[in-house]
């Protein structure tokens, strides 16, 4: 089996390279080193036997000792049908490492930067989200700097300017990467916090956060769990089972990977250079405002459909080329609202009345509005809050109540007949009240699927006096998806 969209990867730290790296980290113990030695033993592969995991990502380099140490593991694993990817990081002699990977029979290597020509082995570009490249023809693209999802450990869990507790999510980089490279399967790497002893729910969320955003986490265990699994301790086995059950859950619902983010607002950017930070911040903040949206990569905007959009937030400091500007202004003339930065040259239309406190000057263009930011460096939260304010809640298609530590992602099929709302609870424990969704458009049915439920639960629509209907969900610890059909 070659690596493809069905490949389910797991980080498999083992061998002298990982031990040497670990020894440079404070808190690394002899016990941890011993576990890494155990994990290079082919017998350790029993852990993934019978699970959906079919690919192990091992540390790789030009270092012969590492190659030799992993040889039995790779050979045994391949016999068992496992794929191996060599993750090359901080390697001075890249060509030697790549050649060694090919010689060792690895399926691919993952490495920073552009894939080298004629590597002789598939290369997975493995870059930070801000430098995601899609030049490789390989169907998998890596994001190396994911965050372990949850509530921030250091920061206060109290509400910030968004009123709701901040959450660490991989949603923004993954939505951006999907927009930049829609034909790729995205893998994202992140490790559990150092010296953390994580509850099973932490791993359920670590799987669900990327999976609900159409990507795959390169599963990575904390040192303690790895040690406890090696020692066959029951709590560790229970945690592992929950993790695997969650992976299996998303495999059973893999049709959802074909759905696309949906909303009345689109965030458009090159997501390159200085534009990345501004664009990513908007994509990070909009879920906290409960604003459904989709992301359009500027490089693909010429062919992108604006159908169903009420507004577009054009993020980039530099103006679009003439063709894209013409397309954007046609969208405005037809009734849309376009939000642009302060440097937008020669704004179209005539000034229109606007509340003075807003960050945007409004201009009337045809049936629509051009909103030009008043400030060169506007506050990111105020920016998206004003965009939502100007768009108006009158047109909200979804609203979420009672889930302050949760984000949701709304996606639909291409025809829009089926929709799904992914709900992720970053607190990893059920709230006091069950989440409630308001859905504006009528649907025939709604059912809740979740790794926390033995079977799907039909949800009851409660029509609202002023239109729309509400769905009340049971309290969820981590994740549930509402599958809806019109």
């Amino acid at each position, binding site marked *: 089996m070659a690596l493809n969209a069905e490949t389910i990867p797991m980080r498999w730290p083992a061998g002298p390279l990982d031990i040497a790296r670990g020894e440079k980290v404070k808190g690394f113990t002899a016990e941890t080193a011993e576990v890494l030695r155990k994990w290079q033993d082919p017998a350790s592969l029993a852990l993934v036997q019978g699970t959906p995991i079919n690919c192990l990502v091992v540390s790789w380099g030009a270092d012969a000792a590492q190659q030799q140490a992993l040889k039995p593991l790779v050979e045994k694993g391949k016999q068992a049908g496992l794929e191996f990817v060599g993750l090359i990081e901080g390697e001075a002699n890249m060509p030697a490492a790549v050649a060694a990977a090919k010689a060792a029979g690895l399926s691919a290597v993952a490495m920073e930067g552009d894939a080298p020509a004629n590597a002789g082995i598939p290369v997975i570009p493995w870059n930070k989200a801000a430098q995601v490249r899609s030049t490789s023809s390989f169907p998998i693209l890596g994001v190396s700097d994911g965050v372990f999802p949850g509530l921030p450990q250091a920061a206060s869990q109290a509400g910030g300017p968004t009123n709701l507790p901040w959450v660490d999510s991989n949603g923004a980089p993954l939505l951006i990467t999907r927009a930049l490279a829609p034909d790729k399967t995205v893998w994202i790497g992140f490790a559990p916090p150092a010296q953390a002893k994580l509850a099973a729910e932490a791993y359920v969320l670590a799987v669900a956060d990327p999976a609900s955003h159409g990507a795959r986490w390169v599963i990575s265990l904390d040192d303690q769990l790895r040690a406890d699994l090696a020692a066959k301790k029951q709590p560790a086995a229970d945690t592992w089972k929950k993790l695997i059950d969650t992976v299996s859950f998303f495999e059973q619902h893999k049709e959802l990977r074909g759905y696309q983010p949906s909303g009345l607002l689109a965030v458009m950017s090159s997501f390159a250079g200085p534009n990345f930070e501004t664009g990513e911040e908007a994509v990070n903040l909009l879920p906290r405002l409960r604003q459904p949206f989709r992301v359009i990569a500027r490089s693909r905007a010429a062919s992108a459909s604006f159908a169903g959009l009420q507004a577009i937030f054009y993020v980039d400091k530099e103006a679009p080329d003439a063709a894209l500007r013409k397309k954007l202004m046609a969208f405005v003339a037809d009734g849309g609202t376009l939000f642009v930065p302060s440097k937008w040259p020669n704004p179209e239309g005539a000034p229109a009345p606007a509340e003075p406190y807003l960050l945007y000057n409004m201009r009337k263009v045809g049936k629509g509005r051009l909103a030009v930011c008043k400030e060169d460096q506007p506050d990111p939260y*105020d920016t998206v809050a004003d965009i939502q304010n100007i768009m*108006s*809640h009158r047109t909200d298609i979804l609203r979420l109540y009672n*889930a302050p530590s949760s984000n949701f992602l709304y996606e639909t099929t291409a025809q829009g007949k089926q929709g799904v709302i992914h709900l992720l609870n970053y607190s990893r424990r059920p709230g*006091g*009240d069950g989440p*409630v969704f308001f859905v504006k458009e009528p649907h025939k049915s709604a059912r809740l699927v979740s790794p926390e439920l033995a079977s799907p639960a039909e949800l009851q629509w409660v029509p609202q006096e*002023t239109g729309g209907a509400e769905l009340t969900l049971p309290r969820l610890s981590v994740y549930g998806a509402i599958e809806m059909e019109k």
Partner: protein
Amino acid sequence: MRQDMTRRQLLAGAGAGASALLARPAWSRAVTAPAGKVTVGKCKTYGPELIPTLEKMFDQLGGLSGLVKGKTVAMKVNFIGVRSQRLGSALMEDTFWSHPKMIGAMVHVLGKAGAKRIRVVEGPWSTTESLEEVMYSMNWKPQDILSAADNVEFENTNYLGRGKKYSRFMVPSGGIIFPGYDLNHSYEDCDVFVSLAKLKEHAATGVTLSMKNVYGTTPITIYGQDAGVDEPSIRPHGGRGNVMHFASRPPSKSAPQQMDLTLPKDAGFRLPRIIAELNSARVVNLAVIEGIKTATGCETNYGNPNRPQAAINPGVIIAGTNAVATDAVGMAVMGFDPLAEKGKVPFARCDSTLAFGEQLGVGIRDLKKNEILGVPISEVVFSYPAMMEKLLAAQKKA
């Protein structure tokens, strides 16, 4: 008198022996609080019975025309807290918030009584959004309120809004915590100030009725956690806890400052005094407490699921010409003693806002000294303490 106490501390009731001083502070005797006229009405739903009930109640008070005819009215409604946090699946307006039909009915009767202009005001949590937008976000139809009378408008008073400058309201007696407050212009523009509250308990002040509703007039741009240091911020961010509850930062320097920085930084101490000051500085001319549908168990559980709450339907409205008197009747309807002091429910951990209202000359909390009309209180009592007992028992059983 302790030699190490300032006069202000003495007046504020701080320090050892404070409770004894609190009961009879010397300065309070100098202020004569007016008695009030309060009426009680039964109303089980927000349906057709609502407007006739209100009209009958206001007739019992002597009619609204004398109060509002030809006048500009500001009606402060109650949109407390983070709007996405509901009590289970119950709608916000059926628990913590003013109900849109109640707001519409009030606007209708005020308009019918001849109000020249009616401005519905509130400072919803941490947003520059207009009240219309807030209502849309709750799936309400603000046009139903706007069309309930002529010249109806909304204003979010959590910031400068449509005004050019903030209006200053000084506490006539000099105040205890703050000598005065800077508020949105709407509170100065109006001839008549209506507090439309909900019949609720509150974690920090025991009850939240028509007096506590006035607390929400303080703009977040001056009294919020991210308020400007020297001048008000442009946009409201966050809540009032840092400045008002805990004094961990002062309001913007442009506003009147706390007079004695040694006073306790405890919400149970500060809020009753601050609320009484606000009610003294911007007097409520018509207090209305809606208890048709509401919630028991504090108005929000602050994320603590162990504090039991329940949506309830007491089916009662209380209205009066004096906020302290109206709140006293409200407390009696809730099954509390309006004369309760600190240490007794609902003021287990806080001072009585009503007591400070009385001491600042706003009104009288003794039911016998006010004129109470309409349905007898005994017929509409909905005991919040009994409900809490029931909820706690159910929680224990679960």
